[in-house]
Every structure is written in C-alpha cells, then in structure tokens.
C-alpha cells in the first residue's frame, strides 16, 4: 500500500461516481445526450486510470505492451465522447471536423490493435522511475510507429473541433461555458498528451498522469452540466412560484384555468375549476365527462364551438350552462386557444372558465327592464289597440241589453251580437296576453322554438297605432313555410319593437314619404329578419359604436336599446347587424338559428 495504489483507485472511484450520477440524470433529463456522453467519457477515464496503474506497476515488457495497446480503446472512447459532449452540450461545432477526427482516431487504434507490432505506440523497453516517498514505478520506453502521426492528427482535429465549437459558443454569448469547458478540454488534453510523450521518450522521470488530466476535464464538464441541472431546478422552482401566482390571480379574478390534452383526451383542471363544474378533486376528466356537466340544451352548441376552434383560426369561446349535481344551474363563460404541433394538428386546448351566472342574471334583468320601459312608452298605443275591441264590446252589449228589454227581441240579431262580443273579447285577450308575455320576467328563460313570422306580425299589430299616428307605411314580406328558430319569443319581439321604433324615428325625421319594409327569409341554417327604412340612415360617426351602450343620435334617447338587442341576439347565438342601404335609409338584420330538428330534417 503506497500513495500510488491509493490515488489511482480514488480517481477510478471518482470517475465511476460521476458516471453513475450522470447516468441517473440522463435517464430523467429532457436533454439527455450530454449526460450520456459524459457518462461514457467518465467510464473511459476510469478504465484509463485502471490501466495506467497496471502499467505503472508492470514489470514485464510483454504485459506493458498489451496494456498499452488496449489503453488506446478507452482513450479513443474518451476523445470521441468529449467531442460528442461538446457538440451536444454546446450545440455548436462543425460536424465534418468531428467526423474526420473520429475516422482518423478509429483507424489509428484499429491499426495499433491488429498489427503484428503496435503501429502507434511501441514499447521497446521498461524503465524504473523513482517517485516521492521512495515509491518505484515502471514506465515504458515507447517509439512511434507509422500510424503515430495519424493518431496525433486525429487528436489535433478533435481539438480543432473543440476550439471551433467553443469559439462559436463564445460568439453566441455562452462565454463562461466556452472558456471553462472548451479551454480545459484543450489544455488538459494537450498537457496529458505532451506529458505522456515526454515520459515515454525518457525526458521526464515521472509516472503517467494521463487519468489525472482527464479527471480535470471531467470536472470541468461536470461543473457545467451540474450548473445546468441546478439552473433547471431553479427554473422549475420559479415556474412553480409563477404558476402559484397565476392560480392565485386567476382565483382572485374568479377565473379557473384548464387544459385539454386532445390526443390523450385528458382534461387537467385545478380544484377551483372542478368546483365550477361540480367535479370531484381526484376524478379523471375527459371530454365526455366535461360534456356530461353541461345543460342538455347547450351541449351541441359547445361541441360545435370546440370543433370550430380545433379546425379554425379563431380562438375557442362559448357561454353555456352547467348543471351541478344538486341541480343548480350556473352560467359559465369559457375561452381558450388551441396549441398545434408542427404539422398544424391540434394538440392542446388551453383556456379559462368564468362563472358569469350573476352577469347573466343582471343581463336578463336589464333586458326585462328595457322591455317594461318600452311598453311604458307604448302605453298610449297599447291602450288604443285595446280600446278598439272594448268599444265594440260595450256598444254591442248595450244594444243587446236594450233589445232583450224590447217586446220582441230579434234572436238572430242577438246571436250576431254575442258572436261579435266574443270575437272582440278574444281579440282584447290576445293583446293582453302579448303584453303580459313582454312584461314577464325572464320567462321563459330557456330558448325555445319561435315562429318568426308570427312574432313579426304580433309586433306590428302591437305597434299598429304607433305606426298609424306617425303616418308610416309598413310593408311585410314574410317568407312562406319558415322553420322555427331557437330563441325567446318575448325577447325577439323586444328586438323587433326596438328596430321598428328606431325606423319609425328615422323615417319621421326624413322628408320623403315614410316607408318601412320588414322581411323574413331563410338562409341555410338561419332565418333572417330584416327591417329596412327610407329614413335618414346611420351617421358614419355613430356606425362604429352603434351597438355599444349610450351611443345614440336620437335626441332624448338613452342609447341602450340596440346594446340590449345585441345582447339578446348574442344570447340565442344569433347575429344582429346594421348597415346603410345604398338607396338610402338603414337596414337592420337579425339572423337566428333554425332549431336542430329543422336542420336535421333539411339534411
């Protein structure tokens, strides 16, 4: 036991430890190539160290020669691994340089191994060398062969490659790494090679220290690799913190984040999100499970919105109802973006959900209030409409009373009177019914199937005296056999009243004989109601803000009507648009979706 038999095994131990640590990291890391190369080079250094010790302790020229021959293999592996490490770790360097080096190296070593005599390093004699502590060791006297130059050239090419790669990294900004790894690789390689040559030709009276130099190279490489691992750990820590922040911010904003892995059909959602949908914290969620939480009437629309987002350029956006296990209905607004792979296939859908139940409630309230206020404005007209049948009823009833009191009541006439009274009473009832529906709050809140032509006709009837008093001519062009649409009857009438009253105001301000045209038409899966007037049109100033609240060009107008109308049509998945007609006046269009049953029938 002397310092030599302790030191070399320590180098072996250190190399094997480093190798195993990096093997472990390589198995978990996302960038595993540098770790694998490091692992290979550390094992190679361990082997070199072992052989070096054996060489130093050999007292037989034949054995020394064999060890020298075989030591070339781990050295070649080491050189190649370092080159591979540099290339993968730096991400720079010329491929042709490293390939040339590898080809030269491998051919030199093969030649050295298979030749009758070693063609690179030929040990011709043994020499005793004394070291400190009185420990003796043996070193071979080596002469070069015909392939020695090739081997030197190979190392030189690899070193040139490392230098070139380091320079490139330096230019790219990775200065510290280029200096620590690049310079130490070149420096210790050259030192070990030079030192070994001086020992082998007898100039220096020291043992080999090749494995020590290589260990230094390993340490430099390991330092940088470790730095990356540390950096990754810190990043992941930061990421966690920032994720936590994001979640807290989202929770404060009542937003819940989610992510749908489309290929695996797995939805990741934190607890806040699960609570919105009434899903247990540990339950696995796929799209089907998500869909199962939705209100039956909204399922199709949500699926459609998702499908559109997956193929189209537009982000995903939908508002839908979720039915919680206890039966509570909640309105959720969700939006998200599709993440695509290089081929453009949808990979992930990431987004947020928000509970908008309260907003929806307020929206309905506002729509209702606006409806009530419109009815208030129309009270005179409504009274007029109602008083017509009432006047006829009263008059008929009084005539009937008097006839009954007469000596010979005319029964045929009495029957006619009763008939007229009944007809007029029904008519009055119809008007009251229509007004009551408009007055009702949020009912029916659920979209249902609505006959658009009927809604138009009823609305025009309701506004009849308003239209008459303003001396406007209203033409109806109602398409025959129009399919029902998904909407709310009262709300659709509310929109129509707003549009018609707007048109009435617009044509009254104009000079030409006032006309309004109301038309219904089917376009694919939609029914379009248009209200066109020949009035003053919409000014360019108001046009861009037309559907925003408080945008008005009507004196005394609050500017809420159209904003509410747009909200209403949005709620039913419809579209409300406006433009000026080229021949003057404005044209408003409301497009509403035909009921699914109708769509299916058509297909």
């Amino acid at each position: 036991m002397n310092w030599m038999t302790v030191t070399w095994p320590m180098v072996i131990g250190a190399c094997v430890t480093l190798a195993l640590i990096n093997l472990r990291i390589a198995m978990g890391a996302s960038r595993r190539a540098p770790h694998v190369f490091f692992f290979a080079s550390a094992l190679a250094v361990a082997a070199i160290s072992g052989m070096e010790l054996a060489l130093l302790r050999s007292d037989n020229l034949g054995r020394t020669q064999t060890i020298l021959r075989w030591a070339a293999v781990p050295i070649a592996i080491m050189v190649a691994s370092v080159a591979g490490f540099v290339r993968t770790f730096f991400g720079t360097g010329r491929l042709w340089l490293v390939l040339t080096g590898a080809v030269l190296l491998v051919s030199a070593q093969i030649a050295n191994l298979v030749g009758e005599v070693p063609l690179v390093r030929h040990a011709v004699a043994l020499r005793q060398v004394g070291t400190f502590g009185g420990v003796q060791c043996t070193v071979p006297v080596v002469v070069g062969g015909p392939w020695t130059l090739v081997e030197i050239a190979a190392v030189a090419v690899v070193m040139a490659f490392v230098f070139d790669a380091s320079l490139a990294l330096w230019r790219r900004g990775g200065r510290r790494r280029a200096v620590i790894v690049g310079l130490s690789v070149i420096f210790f390689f050259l030192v070990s090679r030079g030192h070994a040559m001086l020992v082998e030709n007898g100039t220096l009276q020291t043992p080999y220290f090749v494995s020590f130099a290589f260990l230094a190279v390993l340490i430099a490489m390991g330092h940088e690799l470790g730095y990356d691992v540390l950096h990754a750990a810190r990043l992941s820590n930061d990421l966690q913190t920032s994720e936590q922040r994001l979640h807290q911010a989202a929770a404060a904003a009542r937003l819940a984040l989610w992510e749908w892995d489309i290929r695996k059909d797995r939805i990741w959602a934190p607890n806040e999100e699960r609570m919105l949908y009434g899903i247990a914290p540990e339950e696995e969620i796929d799209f089907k499970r998500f869909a199962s939480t939705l209100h039956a009437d909204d399922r199709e629309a949500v699926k459609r919105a998702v499908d559109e987002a997956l193929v189209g350029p537009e982000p995903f956006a939908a508002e839908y109802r979720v039915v919680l296990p206890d039966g509570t209905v909640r309105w959720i607004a969700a939006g998200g973006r599709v993440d695509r792979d290089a081929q453009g296939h949808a990979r992930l859908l990431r987004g947020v959900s928000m509970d908008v139940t309260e907003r929806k409630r307020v929206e309905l309230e506002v729509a209702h209030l606006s409806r009530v206020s419109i009815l208030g404005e129309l009270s005179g007209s409504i009274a007029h409409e109602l008083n017509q049948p009432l006047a006829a009823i009263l008059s008929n009833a009084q005539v009937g009373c008097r006839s009954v009191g007469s000596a010979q009541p005319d029964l045929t006439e009495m029957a006619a009177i009763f008939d007229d009274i009944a007809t007029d009473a029904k008519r009055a009832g119809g008007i009251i019914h229509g007004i009551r529906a408009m007055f009702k709050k949020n009912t029916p809140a659920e979209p249902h199937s609505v006959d658009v032509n009927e809604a138009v006709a009823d609305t025009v009837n309701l506004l009849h005296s308003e239209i008459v008093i303003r001396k406007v001519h209203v033409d109806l062009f109602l398409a025959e056999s129009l399919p029902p649409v998904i909407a709310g009857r009262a709300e659709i009438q509310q929109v129509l009243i707003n549009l018609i009253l707007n048109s009435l105001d617009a044509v009254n301000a104009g000079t030409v004989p006032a006309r309004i045209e109301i038309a219904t038409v089917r376009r694919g899966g939609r029914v379009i109601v248009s209200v066109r007037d020949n009035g003053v049109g919409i000014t360019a100033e108001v046009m861009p803000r037309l559907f925003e609240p408080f945008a008005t060009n009507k004196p005394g107008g609050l500017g809420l009507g159209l904003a509410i109308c747009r909200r209403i049509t949005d709620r039913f998945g419809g579209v409300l648009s406006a433009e000026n007609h080229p021949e003057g006046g404005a044209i408003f269009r409301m497009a509403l979706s035909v009921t699914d049953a109708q769509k299916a029938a058509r297909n």
Partner: protein
Amino acid sequence: MSATNQTVLIVDDDPSVRRSLLRLMRHAGLKALAFASAEEFLEKQSTALLHPACVVLDLRMPGLSGLELQQKLSMDSTPCPVIFISGNGDIPATVKAMRQGAVTFLMKPFDNDDLLHAVAEALEKHRALLDSESQVRAIRERMSELTERERKVMSWVITGALNKQIAAELGIVENTVKVHRSRVMEKMRVVSVAELVRVCAQAGFAAAKGGRTILI
C-alpha cells in the same frame, strides 16, 4: 230623429268598431254608412251631406287622419258636424278637434247613450245650418230680381237714410226714390225696413257708405 233623409256617417279603420256602430245606429233608427278610411269617405259620400248628417270620426287612422278630414269638412259652406271617437285621445289632439268645431270628443269605450246624444245634437245642428242656408239662398234669389238702381236704393234704405237723403245721394228726385223703395219692399217680400235690414244681414248684403255728410 226619425227623419229618413238624415244620415250618420261613420269613419273608423277598425272593422269591429264600424260593425258595432252600424248596429247601434240601426237599433236607434238612424240611417248610417260606414267607411274604413278618410279617403274612402271623401270618395264615396256624395249626396249625404246635402241633407242633415253628422260624421262619427276616429282620430287615428292610416292615411288621412281624423283631424285632417275634419279640416276638409270645415271648409264647406254648411260644415257637417263631427263627433270624434278615439281609443287614446291626447290633449293636443282633443283641443285641436274642439277648436275646429267638433261637437264632442268621446273616448273609446264610450256609452251608447253619450254617442246617441251627441249624434242627435249634431244632426240638429246640421239641420239648422242647412235651414238657414236655404233661407239665405231664397233671399239671394229675391235680390237677383232687383234692378241695379233698386239695389242701390236698398243699400241706402238699410242704413236708415230718409228718402230725401237718398235722392240727394243718388242725384234723383224724391218721388222716384219712393217708387224704387216700394218696389224693393215688394220684391224682397218684406213689410218693414227692420225686416229688410234683417234679411240683408242674413244674406250678407252690405249697406251703402258715405251717407253721413248729408245726414248732418
């Protein structure tokens, strides 16, 4: 109210109201015609207004409104009285209707008796109007029989001028004035100057001017 030549003309765009009003008038023993619009009324009624009549008129109608029809009617020499009925009468419209001489303004629904009273009043008013109109026509006919000189004399007589003054004014002898005067009284079928003054006023015949100087 049973006179056969008087007519109630109903103008209302609401068929139920027209029907019930026609029935009411029939039961009240009144001849009635109904029109769905002011335009139809103007087009179809031709002779009804020559006899005592009244118009039961709706305020709000498509096309020509009730107030506009009333205005047209009021330009007649013997304007047919109008009774307004409305489902929702606003104050400005009511005021305008009354200013334009409406007999009354009834809010729908109204009591039949109220309407029948108003109709009776309106018919009576129109009858009186037509009566006075026929008297004036008779006076004018008589006037047309007068010679130029007789008209001149009459215009002085109704100022209360004496024969002597008239003679001086016209540059003729007093006796001639006397002759003309008796012819005027005869042709105008009046016995006193007071009566002559009344019929001239009724027919709108103007008295002569400029007699003052002679009177003094």
